[in-house]
């Protein structure tokens, strides 16, 4: 565990294991509570409590509830931390403990952290800016800017856990955390790093709410009907916001095995490319999303027909769900006939930059339990999204390999391929 980071110079391809999971989510704190609620279909979506939305049309979101950061971080200094920093740092703590790394002298000294966040501490940044004008710059104490930068949650985590490896924040919109996990996977596979904490974090704030509301992306905005997230549903009308911190521990397989770590599964492929240009026609967008999936499959040397499960981006967006469904349909061979398709967002919300990591942890838990949770609220599937959608109840199947999609309507499409190493 204490070997220094490699240079990534040799032409090697190490295998990359997932050895720990940490979750702070509207569906529950910790992987057990999260999974139980997911399988039992208990939704994390409820009337928004943390911000005042009286004067705006959309009233629902998936907010983290019943979370006590002191349980994970202790009481000291909590008042200086933003909600997002508490989510992320607690999720990392859980993931390290889950991987049995934070105890018994196995502290990962050369571990690094790569986290995706589209907005990070957006509302705290703008609060600080506002206070410069409202109170005057001389009134702002140095500690007032302790945790207000977009990436300060990640910096704090690297300081809190005394990490010596790379610390990196990726901010590529909705695919941020998928790109963070994909990047961490690449760095371990190339032999450069040995152990990386990867995932995503976002926090609900009035600023983030307004950004999505004013773009007309939320379910129920622009008088589009009732607020309900129903990915691939005939009457879907946008997404319901979420938040949370979702983290996995990625570890070079041999060294994970040699310390007797539990192996949840392996990451075997990652692909990313630009899909969101408004220059692209609908057909081009579909073929690009399909291309992202093919890139990830090629990267993992896996044929689409081997996929048992696709954890879809499916966030209940009118256009994007259809694009994704048709892209999946276009995969070569009988991939779309065989693979089951599900989405976690109708229960956990669309947590944008953290969504990729939310889906990855959901997929890993599905693999571990050989159980695919259904797409909640999906009563009336859209005939244009004609896939093996899992509806109504969870399906028991062995999942040997799975794919997780993350799509930004104005940015990247990114895709990760996972393999169940117990098979």
């Amino acid at each position, binding site marked *: 565990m204490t070997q220094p*980071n490699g240079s990534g*110079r040799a032409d090697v391809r190490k295998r990359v294991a997932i050895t720990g999971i940490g979750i702070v989510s509207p569906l529950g704190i910790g992987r057990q509570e999260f999974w139980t609620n997911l399988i039992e279909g208990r939704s994390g979506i409820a009337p928004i409590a943390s911000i005042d939305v009286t004067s705006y049309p959309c009233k629902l979101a998936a907010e983290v509830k019943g979370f006590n950061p002191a349980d994970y971080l202790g009481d000291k200094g909590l008042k200086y931390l933003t909600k997002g920093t508490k989510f992320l740092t607690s999720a990392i703590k859980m993931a390290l403990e889950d991987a049995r790394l934070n105890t018994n002298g196995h502290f990962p000294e050369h571990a690094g952290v790569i986290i995706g966040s589209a907005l990070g501490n957006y509302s705290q940044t703008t609060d600080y800016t506002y206070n410069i004008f409202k109170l005057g710059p001389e009134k702002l104490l140095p500690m007032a800017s*302790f945790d207000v930068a977009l*990436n300060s949650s990640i910096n704090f985590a*690297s300081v809190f856990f005394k990490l010596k490896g790379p610390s990196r924040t990726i901010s590529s919109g909705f695919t941020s955390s998928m790109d963070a996990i994909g990047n961490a996977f690449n760095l371990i596979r190339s032999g450069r790093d040995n152990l990386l904490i990867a995932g995503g974090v976002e926090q609900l704030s009035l600023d983030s709410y307004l950004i999505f509301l004013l773009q007309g992306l939320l379910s129920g905005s622009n008088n589009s009907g009732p607020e309900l997230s129903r990915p691939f549903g005939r009457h879907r009308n946008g997404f319901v916001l979420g938040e949370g911190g979702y983290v996995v521990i990625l570890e070079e397989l041999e060294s994970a095995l040699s310390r007797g770590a539990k192996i949840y599964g392996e990451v075997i492929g990652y692909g990313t490319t630009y899909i969101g240009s408004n220059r692209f026609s609908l057909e081009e967008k579909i073929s690009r999303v399909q*291309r992202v999936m093919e890139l990830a499959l090629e990267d993992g040397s896996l044929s689409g027909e081997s996929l048992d499960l696709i954890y879809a981006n499916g966030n209940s967006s009118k256009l994007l769900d259809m694009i994704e469904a048709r892209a999946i349909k276009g995969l070569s061979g009988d991939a779309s006939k065989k693979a089951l398709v599900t989405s976690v967002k109708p229960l956990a919300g669309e947590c944008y930059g953290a969504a990729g990591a939310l889906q990855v942890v959901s997929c890993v838990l599905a693999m571990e339990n050989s159980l695919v949770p259904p797409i909640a609220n999906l009563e009336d599937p859209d005939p244009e999204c004609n896939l093996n959608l899992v509806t109504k109840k969870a399906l028991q199947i062995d999942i040997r390999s799975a794919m997780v999609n993350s799509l*930004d309507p104005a940015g990247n499409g990114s895709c990760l391929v996972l393999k169940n190493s117990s098979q």
Partner: protein
Amino acid sequence: MRRVVVTGIGLVTALGATVKETWEAMLAGKDGISEITSFDTSRYKVHRACEVKKLNFNGHIITKKPFTVYDCLLASAREAMEDSGLDGYEPLRRDRVGVSIGTLAGELSLFERRLRDHHLNKADGFDIEVALSYPPMTLSTQLAEEFRMEGPNIILINACSSGNHAISWAFDAIREGKVDAMIVGGSDVVPQTEFTHFHNLKSLAPERCQPFDKNRQGLVVGAGAGVLILESLEQARKRDARMYAEVKGYGLSSDGYHMTAPHPSGEGPVRAMEVALASAGLSYKDIDYISAHGTGTPLNDKMETLALQTVFREMAQDIPCSSVKSMIGHTMGAASAIESIVCCMAIKEGAIPPTINYETEDPECNLDCVPNQARECKTNYALNNSFAFGGNNASVVFGRVHLPVERGSVI
């Protein structure tokens, strides 16, 4: 593994609107500092910064300020793209050209301006156009649109080492054959928010930036952008592109120590530099020039000297190691992208820019910081250091491009 070369560069700094202008001013040892004009500094103890004075859009000079982060980025990206000739390469696969950009704060200054100029409450200040420009991802997607590139779009937010992070992301992607080229860089202006943050941490020098000087008082905030076109050697040779330098390797590390202060021993930077050298397959003895992080804060320069002494041992005093931050300020998310271009120019032009404002030797900074005068010096390998707030370290090694001996068409 493919090799990665720099085939185009573009610069916007307080010293000039093009690579040529900035480079000539740097070699002349000019200081880009001036009174801050983009916001009122009367309630601060510091009034000076290295702001950008003009932009050059392919020969069209713009002086109407204030400039946005994207304005600076676009001007330098256009210069770099034109310089590279990439756009005119017919067989170019646009889906294999991506964009990776580093920034500290994105377009935060737009939000500031709206609050400030309209005396608004925060919620009223929420204008969708402004709000949508803040998420930093818009910087890379706008560039992708501008140049019609369709590969991955990545934004790296790593405080003042963002530029080196953006370069290393792109380096990996090209080396592994995922893409053929990347538009890479960093851009930042001087947002009042960041200025206030540094000011209230007492990190700012009141008059000028004096890296490695005994009486150094802190950093000077700067604005600017640097963009590099990174490309596989294979494609660069196929299209007969000019090559400034090769990206040889990089190293990343964290101090894991403190949110703002560096670890005094410099152990994090030591790891970043050592991994960078190992990744480049080089020994410390091979490095001819070091572009220092050299912010001019008492803590950083002392720590960086210690770290350099650890890595470069008996040669630490002899390798020229300058900080252009003395002339263009600390351009934050853009700094290491700009300084990467300085490394490329040092390799290509055989000259090293100085550390200006250097007056009094500091025994704790016992380095050859190329004081006040530029120097002719043949550089085969250059190391670019960036050690950001939060202990976020990234070093990149650049080298002269040595082409393999032709044997058929094998590269």
